[in-house]
């Protein structure tokens, strides 16, 4: 009985979070203003963090906030401020129907893939998911999946170096 109540609450929370994610996503995409779009993105990221909480992965949820909200979006913010992008720029203007169709397709495609994956191979569901300890998580990264983990960090380093190089290049052009 109690589990059932819990589950009802969980569903409510799930839909609430999904709503936050979706609204945030729409704000991100439809907003004319880059900073507002960023705020939408942050909203989405918070929603995702909430989903992680629901899945009893508070560590990952907090990491999501710490890294994506606290660091990545701040950096995006910085990038927006550094580049002079404003509503009169090349991004604005009327959108052709073709563009809307393509955008819709681009949005639906991953959704279909993920949805099919979820339907065809549903992950095991628990009424109350277990919380995995941080230590186990760490061991997971550093023992079983060490290569992908390190490759990701390499990728990030390369991306960072590339950004710096690009920035210098742009500066030199001026």
């Amino acid at each position, binding site marked *: 009985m109690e589990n059932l109540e819990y589950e009802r*609450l969980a569903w409510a929370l799930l839909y609430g979070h999904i709503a936050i994610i979706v609204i945030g996503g729409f704000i991100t995409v439809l907003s004319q203003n880059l900073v507002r779009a960023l705020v939408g993105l942050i909203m989405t990221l918070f929603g995702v963090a909430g989903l992680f909480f629901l899945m009893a992965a*508070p560590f990952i949820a907090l990491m999501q906030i710490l890294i994506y909200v606290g660091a990545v979006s701040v950096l995006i*913010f910085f990038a927006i401020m550094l580049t002079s992008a404003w509503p009169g720029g090349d991004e604005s203007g009327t959108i052709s129907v073709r563009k809307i169709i393509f955008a819709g397709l681009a949005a639906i495609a991953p959704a279909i893939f993920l949805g099919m994956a979820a339907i065809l191979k549903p992950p095991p569901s628990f009424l109350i998911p277990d919380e995995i300890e941080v230590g186990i998580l760490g061991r997971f990264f550093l023992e079983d999946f060490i290569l992908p983990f390190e490759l990701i960090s390499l990728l990030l380093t390369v991306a960072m170096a590339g950004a710096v190089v690009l920035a210098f290049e742009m500066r030199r052009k001026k």
Partner: protein
Amino acid sequence: MIEAIPTQFIIIFVGLLAVMAFVGLNAIVLVYLERKVAGFIHRRPGPYEVGPPCFPHGILQPFADGLKLVGKQLFTPRGADSILFWLAPMISIAPAIVCFIVIPFGPHLQIVNTNVGLVLILAFTGINVLALCLAGWASQNKYGLIGAARDISQGVAYEIPLLLVVLSVVFMTGTFNLFDIADGQGAWPWQWYIFYQPLAFIIFFICALAETNRNPFDLPEAESELTAGFHTEYSGMGFACFFLAEYAYMVVASCIIAILFLGGFQGPVLPGGWWFLAKVYVLLLIMIWIRWTFPRVRFDQLLNICWKWLIPLAVLNLLITLAVIAI
């Protein structure tokens, strides 16, 4: 339906209310303290006569301040992004309140005891940076914009040594649980982590000053350069929110320092809650003392301190810690 709500939610809800009261109370005390300490350092009495004579030493000053701020007209500058402009102070204050939920104020005074308490605080304090730059950007003011840019570079830079230092402590204790960290230290000062990690303590304290935008690192709001930086355009409660948030983050930072390095609620004789409060307020007093003593550093110096000194030292500290643990 009410019984359907788990008790934990009720605890959190009540706790949130308590935390808000605590934050408000702290702000009142800190406003008074800051003014009085500043007065003491300046060799003047500070606020002295507010209200009827039955309230000596200007003890009503924070209330008068609060009343003034509440009574002020809310003013949105022309050209400002009004939604983001008013969202920013709220984004600033809300995470500060969340942070208090996981802080163990005493052996039995903690709202939620979670294994990831430290991460939660680090994550939510990071949001403040975002709030400040939103404020600076949305107010459509050049000073605000520069203040926001400064805030980002400062906040992001100082987060790195801060995290590294926290990591060294976490490696020592093997947990993110704030209660366990505090509990792991003994009652007597020589059992506190400050004696095992003195360098970490200093680095953390400097970073905490920088993260809370306190003098000498108050560059985002450096009033002689940027009038008031990111909150130039805010009046009344908008400003008050940033003000409250600054004090709240100061208290959070002091709490974390007390827990990580000064044994948290541990202490001889007196009950834990009082020890914790005493430690937090000593740290806050030191912060206030520093504010009224030092000039402001320059922006490039600020970043140099971080990148050239604090980060290498923090890494070194981490490596030493690891080596000691491994041995």
